[in-house]
């Protein structure tokens, strides 16, 4: 696994601190969406279908920082929309790094080279560009519904690495994914020199254009079991090994919908990053008034039955690591040996 030691330490002490205080529900990663506007319209994305006047709006830096303080999570993921289109992205990232938050700036990297050349960012152990890459050139360009985007992203990655930035990739998999092609993709990303890769099955957004290719639970297990059966030592994953084992069907985790709370123009999104069932004005209100028991597979909620997405299940995997000796042992073993 490729998560730097200082980041592991920060997360470990944060989780243990929450446990010592007796907190059973706590956030791990804040999903901060400063805008919904994007320069792509990907087939599997249900995040950007809004009227023009909503797409033109964005949060202020002050609103973003207030949400970060209120939430208290040690990591902040900035998706969107496309965060590099956010006019205040430079000052926002700078302020988050100054607060020692581990920032994952989730970008399609179309604008990455340009923004780096403009001097918008400074390399830091707290900042990682998490570049959206859904596979090799053909698969990626098909997923984002535009030819040439893969090459632009690769160019952005190279430029970021050349300038000393941390770069990871984030990949969403659908049911047309080929295990062999994905293994070739892992090789290609490692050849590029990225620090690590993040994988997740897609979620069937009701507003996404493509409704046909979302993975069901059994297919997810089959795909990941094939893809990661004999992982090469050189493949680095920037995520919990237990979460990958869960995707392979080796672990059974319930969803932790409050683990990656989402804040955007509309407020604190209930109950999670994927479902939009309403908004709370404050983080406290979100945590205290959301009917958490109505979500997750065991709840019987139809919308949760096939979901195995990282934002709900990776916090469970991390919590599992620090909840039992077995969880801790499994995590250490996978981290040291690279076997899943």
């Amino acid at each position: 696994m490729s998560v730097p030691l200082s980041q592991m330490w920060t997360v470990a002490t944060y989780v243990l601190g929450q446990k010592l205080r007796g907190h059973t529900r706590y956030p791990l990663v804040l999903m901060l969406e400063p805008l919904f506007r994007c320069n792509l319209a990907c087939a599997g994305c249900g995040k950007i279908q809004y009227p023009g006047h909503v797409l033109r709006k964005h949060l202020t830096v002050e609103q973003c920082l207030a949400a970060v303080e209120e939430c208290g999570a040690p990591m902040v993921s900035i998706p969107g929309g496309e965060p590099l289109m956010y006019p205040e992205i430079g000052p926002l990232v700078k302020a988050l790094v100054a607060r020692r938050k581990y920032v994952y700036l989730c970008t399609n990297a179309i604008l990455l080279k340009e923004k780096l050349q403009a001097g918008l960012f400074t390399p830091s152990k707290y900042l990682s560009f998490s570049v959206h890459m859904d596979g090799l050139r053909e698969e990626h360009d098909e997923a984002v519904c535009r030819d040439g985007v893969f090459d632009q992203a690769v160019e952005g990655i190279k430029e970021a690495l050349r300038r000393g930035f941390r770069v990871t990739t984030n990949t969403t998999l659908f049911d047309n994914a080929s295990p062999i092609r994905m293994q070739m993709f892992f090789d290609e990303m490692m050849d590029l020199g990225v620090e690590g890769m993040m994988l997740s099955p897609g979620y069937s957004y009701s507003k996404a254009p493509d409704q046909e290719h979302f993975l069901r639970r059994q297919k997810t297990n089959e795909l990941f079991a094939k893809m990661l059966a004999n992982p090469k030592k050189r493949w680095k994953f920037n995520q919990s090994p237990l979460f990958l084992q869960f995707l392979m069907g080796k672990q059974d985790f319930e969803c932790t919908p409050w683990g990656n709370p989402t804040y955007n123009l509309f407020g604190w999104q209930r109950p999670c990053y994927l479902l939009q069932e309403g908004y709370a004005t404050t983080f406290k209100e979100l945590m205290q008034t959301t009917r958490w028991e109505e979500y997750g597979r065991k709840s019987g909620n139809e919308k949760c039955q096939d979901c195995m997405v990282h934002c709900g299940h990776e916090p469970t995997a991390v919590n599992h690591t620090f909840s039992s000796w077995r969880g801790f042992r499994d995590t250490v073993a996978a981290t040291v040996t690279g076997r899943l």
Partner: protein
Amino acid sequence: MTDEKSLEGWAPEIPDAATLAEVVDRAFDYRGDVTVMLDDGRELVGYLFNRTRDVVEPFVQMFERENAGPSRVPYARIRAIRFTGRDTAAGNSYAAWLRSREAAKAASSSPGA
């Protein structure tokens, strides 16, 4: 693409509170602007992004097309809701993109291309 028919252009009658709650739910789920008609005759045009029911005075929240900040409107003041804006989630863009891609491939591989 969602098979569900778009609600674009829908202008339902709202005879009672139960219907109002249902129409508000539909408006909340709708990815286009709506027009909310109030008891004083005013009309608010914008995107209805939230509704809170489990409180003493249930309310909706909107980003009005012509105003910056979100506004809050109690259910009790709503007389009608019309689905007047374009449904941004409607259409068949993925299938359309696939078709255009296939057509482009066919054109580039055909003799004389």
